[in-house]
């Protein structure tokens, strides 16, 4: 191991020739209330033409600021203090306004997170794409031709028709393709992608990522990709920089960084992800203690020192060196103790959870039979849930997965009675039927079934203190009042690892993770038997997600609570769930024990969902493309609702007869005409089982 001077030379590109993007010792401040606060603290990296460089890190680490600074596109209170950004050898920081405008029009492009906001909602798509070419100086007829060409290039099958539409008439994936087509109009030297697939479903995300991958080969644009999803970075980027508090703490080829991280922060980040099919009973997830420093915090030495398990006096007094690592010449870690990375303690073992599966003499804590939900829209019946059959054992976690619009949240709301299910179905708690609507349910029924919402900002009343939020639930659900209720609130808070001081704060004074803890505490205020969790960690950073998932597992171990866990994150569901139900167009397509669902053979829809997930472990998978979009539930396809998109559909059968949900193995059912062993043969080698490693 050698220590090299990274000073003003910056990290040198792995590829010979002039780099497409060269960021050198970039320092950026945001002026907040008259004070300059440091956001980037000497960021340096290079991206070669045709190379894809990813920046990862938790929210607030400065990755988006870096992306915006690369185009000198900072918010009004942002300022580049020192350092330079060169694109194709020209210094972007020194450009005049006119030159900058020209540069942004011809040499660099950006794709944002929300495609709907990147387009003008009042103009037809065609007009906007054509405009991307006319600003480059093409004549109107030329621009029209080029626009059609560009849309074809981003794999839009019927560009003439798409050009005639307004942005809102396109799906999210389609919108993002159009935005990418516009971004590529000028053949940019640099393409910046800021969380381009965050708002999209897994299957759509996979398509957009495939597209970016193909386009990268066709153009020689350098790609700077920002994502919080490490799997996406691994699958798309050649090299990656891990950012923390405005500094790149580790950098190198994606596979190497993710397989053998050499900075304590990278180690913590990766260990907080449920990887390699690990389950809650085997190992708890690693968390990173403390929280990200506020912007502008005084961090004179190592930026990670306050949260680092290896920190010692040296880390607090000396700036860590940039340590070049073996392997790639461009790989480095900013740490005093690269040699002690292996000393970082492993996460604790998992918690024991006993699942009492429902049986003939033992009814499940929750049973749903023939549950349907039909919304009425302008006198049209829109079936959002069709004939759902489920049961949930004590202490069991049932994961519910599916794309958006598949009915996951409708199912949760029907269980809870927020939107009462249609008449005809039966919903039973502990073997006793309960009314479909929460307003008709008894206090005990309400107490037994509670919910944790996706977004704690929306779920907690922002004008109430944490104490009032919890006390009200305790009183309302258990009938305990006054001092006794307060005692229970304090016990509850302690159980959820909230300190008494947190109780007197308002939700907005808490971090995202703490807010979600309060929301979970509220759900547990009346000792519920079942807690429905609707994407409870999707708004959180991975290290915070890990803490919340550990907490949910601990609570389940102690209270024997059952969970219905709705998520789009296959890693999370694999970690937490005992059984998984896959929903498509309001119908359960497959339901079975987690291992069997992950190992296959699967329903073709599950197969496609699983293959769409970019894995941070870099497992090789054959991607299954789903054609088209989810049909409208108001007008479901004939026969099997999945047949128009199913790569294995059998004409003459699948489009005429709807398959029944049939048990194919013990506890494993699916809704498919293809026989189970035939599916196994078609799908070939099963995915690695979680017990293999």
């Amino acid at each position, binding site marked *: 191991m050698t220590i090299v001077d990274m000073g003003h030379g910056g990290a040198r590109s792995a590829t010979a020739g002039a780099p497409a993007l060269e960021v050198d010792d970039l320092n950026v401040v945001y002026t907040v209330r008259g004070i300059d606060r440091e956001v980037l603290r000497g960021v340096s990296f290079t991206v070669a033409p045709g190379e894809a460089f990813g920046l990862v890190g938790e929210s607030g680490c400065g990755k988006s600021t870096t992306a915006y600074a690369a185009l000198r596109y900072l918010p009004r209170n942002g300022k580049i203090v020192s350092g330079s950004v060169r694109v194709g050898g020209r210094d972007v920081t020194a450009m005049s306004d006119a030159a900058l405008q020209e540069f942004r029009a011809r040499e660099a492009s950006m794709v944002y997170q929300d495609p709907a906001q990147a387009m003008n909602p009042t103009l037809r798509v065609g007009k906007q794409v054509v405009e991307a070419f006319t600003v480059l100086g093409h004549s109107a007829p030329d621009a029209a031709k080029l626009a059609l060409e560009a849309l074809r290039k981003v794999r839009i099958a019927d560009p003439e028709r798409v050009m005639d539409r307004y942005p809102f008439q396109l799906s999210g994936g389609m919108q993002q393709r159009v935005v990418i087509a516009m971004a590529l109009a000028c053949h940019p030297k640099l393409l910046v992608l800021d969380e381009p697939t965050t708002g999209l479903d897994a299957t759509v995300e996979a398509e957009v990522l495939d597209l970016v991958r193909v386009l990268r080969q066709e153009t020689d644009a350098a790609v700077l990709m920002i994502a919080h999803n490490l799997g996406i970075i691994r699958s798309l980027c050649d090299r990656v920089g891990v950012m923390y508090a405005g500094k790149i703490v580790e950098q190198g080829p994606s596979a190497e960084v993710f397989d053998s991280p050499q900075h304590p922060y990278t180690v913590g980040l990766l260990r907080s992800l449920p990887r390699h099919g690990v389950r809650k009973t085997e190992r708890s997830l690693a*968390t990173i*203690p*403390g*929280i990200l*420093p*506020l912007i502008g915090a005084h961090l004179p030495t190592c930026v990670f020192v306050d949260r680092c398990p290896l920190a010692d006096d040296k880390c607090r007094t000396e700036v860590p060196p940039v340590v070049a690592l073996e392997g790639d010449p461009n790989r480095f870690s900013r740490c005093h103790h690269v040699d002690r990375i292996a000393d970082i303690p492993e996460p604790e073992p998992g918690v024991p959870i006993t699942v009492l599966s429902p049986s003939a003499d033992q009814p499940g804590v929750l049973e749903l039979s023939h549950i349907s939900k039909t919304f009425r829209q302008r006198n049209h019946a829109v079936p959002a849930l069709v004939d759902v059959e489920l049961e949930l054992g004590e202490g069991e976690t049932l994961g519910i997965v599916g794309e958006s619009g598949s009915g996951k949240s409708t199912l949760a709301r029907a269980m*809870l009675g*927020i939107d009462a299910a249609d008449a005809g179905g039966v919903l039973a708690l502990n073997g006793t039927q309960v009314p479909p609507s*929460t*307003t008709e349910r008894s*206090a005990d029924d*309400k107490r037994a*079934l*509670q*919910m944790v*919402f*996706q*977004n704690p900002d*929306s*779920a*907690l*009343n*922002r*004008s*109430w*203190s944490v104490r009032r939020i919890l006390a*009200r*639930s305790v009183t*309302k*659900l258990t009938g305990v009042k006054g001092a006794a209720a307060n005692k229970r609130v304090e016990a509850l808070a302690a159980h959820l*690892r*909230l*300190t008494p*001081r*947190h109780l*007197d*704060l*308002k939700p*907005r*004074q*808490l*971090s995202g*993770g*703490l807010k979600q*803890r309060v929301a979970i505490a*509220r759900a547990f205020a*009346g000792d519920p038997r079942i807690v429905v969790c609707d994407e409870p960690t999707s708004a959180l950073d991975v290290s*915070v997600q890990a*803490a919340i998932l550990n907490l949910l597992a601990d609570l389940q171990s102690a209270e024997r609570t059952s969970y219905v866990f709705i998520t789009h994150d296959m890693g999370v569901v694999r970690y937490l769930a005992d059984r998984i139900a896959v929903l498509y167009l309001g119908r359960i397509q497959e339901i079975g024990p987690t291992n069997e669902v992950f190992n296959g053979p699967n329903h073709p829809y599950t197969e496609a969902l699983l293959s769409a997930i970019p894995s941070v472990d870099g497992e090789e998978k054959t991607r299954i493309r789903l054609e088209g979009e989810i049909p409208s539930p108001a007008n479901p396809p004939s026969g099997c609702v999945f047949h128009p998109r199913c790569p294995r559909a059998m004409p003459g059968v699948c489009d005429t007869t709807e398959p029944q949900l049939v048990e194919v193995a013990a506890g494993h059912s699916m809704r498919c005409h293809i026989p189970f062993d035939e599916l196994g043969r078609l799908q070939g080698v099963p995915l690695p089982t979680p017990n293999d490693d």
Partner: protein
Amino acid sequence: MTDHPSSIVVPGQMPDVSERKQARRENWRLIRRRPAFLIGMAILLVWVVCALFPLTIAPHHPLDFRTGLNQSPSWDHPFGTDQTGRDVFSRVIAGARDILRIAPAAAVLGVLFGVILGMLMGYIRGWFDIIASRIVESFLALPVVLVGLLAVTTMGNSAWVVIGVVAALFTPIVARTVRAAVLAERELDYVTSAKLRGESTMFIMFREILPNVMGPIVVELTVRLGYAVFTVATLSFLGAGPPPPSPDWGSQVSDNYSSIVSGFWWRTFFPAGAIASLVISVNMIADSVQSVMEAS
């Protein structure tokens, strides 16, 4: 764990001060820096003091007509005297009392009823909302002054009638604003969570939602106050105010404006200026409150 001290996002504040106080203190600090707010407050304060102690401040009794008739402004009579020899300065000071009693009462009542109606419309929705919305819209189409005059002519020109009719005409306007705020609020998950633990509709509306829509309500209150001053002055100008000898501003203007052509401008100018200064000061305050509330 995450219970690290720096997990509190609001930096640089004493931890023992409650959040509400903190937010209020921050808003107060922001609003104090606005010159429009300070000027508006100063003018309003002058009128409030006049309304509270008219006889102490005024050099003469407002009804005392022993002084000379139609004197132009002088040291003894800074605003001159009117056609019966009463001191205009003293009458303007005394006139602050009526308007500062009626206008705020009308504004407060209008906002109160508007909040209740808007809350019901926004939260309950359905047929109630559809019908109430049509009624609100039809009320919005009514000319305020005309309806006010009609009410005062049929029910007598007591202060309560003026307060009642202005409040009734403001109610739908406020209701519409509150309804819009509640519509956004009711979709948030804390409302769902309240339903899941079995809270009553009343509780959800007034304990859960109301504190979160106070911003627009406070803004609406200040804006309505400005309009109320203007409306009440207009009504009294049109003869729907207190009867003649009273030193009401609106009636002073209407009694004297025809004499401007005779050169007695001060008899109209000062009461009219008083109305204008009060309306402008309240609007300056309302604007400041609005921009601070919207920023936070």
